[in-house]
């Protein structure tokens, strides 16, 4: 059994499990699933400044910070006890493309050749980690939610603005992965 759990989970197991987060949070306390809101709560609790957007009682949202603390802990547990020792199996076309940029280490879930403290000091690493993170934080709040708040919670409740947001998430991702990222990786 444990050997089976250690294998990568197929989409039809993981997808419904992720989807069940929606009713679980609703039934446990009428909470709406949304992860990027935590970034706002961190701002509101640590450095609200004089910004009206961060003037609210973040203590009432503390449940969500517990939820993301659980995600971190889930990552710890999965990596410690359920890790798959084999390298990730990716599409051969992606392997071929990444090889042209010198990326050939598939041992981690995060590409160790791109995401490391050393590469943080390179232009490529700085753009990907600091620039990418900034876009994720800025864009998700500007859009009023991220993949969890819009693409899962919003679509689950059949909200068309969330469909618009999801289509734009995908459009931005296609643009970056196919046209801009190759230029960045070539550096």
């Amino acid at each position: 059994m444990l050997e089976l759990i250690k294998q990568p989970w197929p989409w039809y197991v993981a997808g419904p499990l992720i989807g069940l987060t929606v009713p679980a949070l609703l039934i446990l306390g009428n909470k709406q699933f949304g992860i990027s809101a935590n970034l706002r709560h961190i701002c509101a609790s640590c450095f609200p400044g004089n910004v009206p957007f961060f003037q609210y009682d973040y203590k009432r949202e503390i449940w969500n910070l517990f939820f993301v603390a659980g995600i971190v802990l889930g990552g710890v547990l999965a990596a410690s006890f359920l890790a798959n020792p084999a390298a990730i199996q990716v599409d051969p076309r992606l392997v071929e493309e990444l090889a042209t940029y010198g990326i050939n280490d598939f041992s981690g879930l995060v590409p160790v050749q791109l995401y490391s403290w050393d590469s943080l000091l390179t232009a490529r690493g700085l753009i990907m980690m600091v620039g990418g993170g900034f876009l994720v934080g800025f864009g998700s709040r500007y859009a009023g939610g991220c993949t969890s708040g819009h693409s899962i919670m919003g679509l689950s409740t059949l909200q068309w603005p969330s469909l618009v947001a999801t289509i734009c998430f995908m459009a931005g991702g296609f643009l970056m992965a196919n046209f801009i990222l190759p230029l960045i990786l070539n550096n």
Partner: protein
Amino acid sequence: MQSPFIDNPAGFEARSQDTICINESHLQHKWYHNFKYLMVGVLFGIGFVKAEVISWFRIQEMFRLQSFHMYGIIGSAVATGIISVWLIRRFRINTIYGEPITFAPKKFNKGQVYGGLLFGLGWALTGACPGPLFAQVGTGASVVAVVLASAVAGTWVYGRFRDWLPH
């Protein structure tokens, strides 16, 4: 109902942009009641890691249309969510504390387009949306803490300049 939150009268809908800041329980619980949300997060985080949703490589495959995996996950997660929400509405299921479950409509604004596109660019760069970023830190990728800190900075800059942005 009167809200304890201070809304921003001048700014654009400071609260409804995040439905999270609308649904407030009026029950008071001890702080340790929050551990039930932590448990949901643990299961969710394990699922993220084991399905390789947090993998930069899987996200690259998705945006290059080289794999069905991520589409299957998002599609079946949404299908599960739609069915669950339908059942909750149909049978008027309450929370475990007996409170009614409510849903706040999301209003359209241009931010969903502009912000959505910017988010998408960041998603493909980092290979992770906010949930996976937290899970990646848990798996021991300590440098992702920098990505998260930058995401917090991005959120702060949005909050500071939101009144200048088209919505």
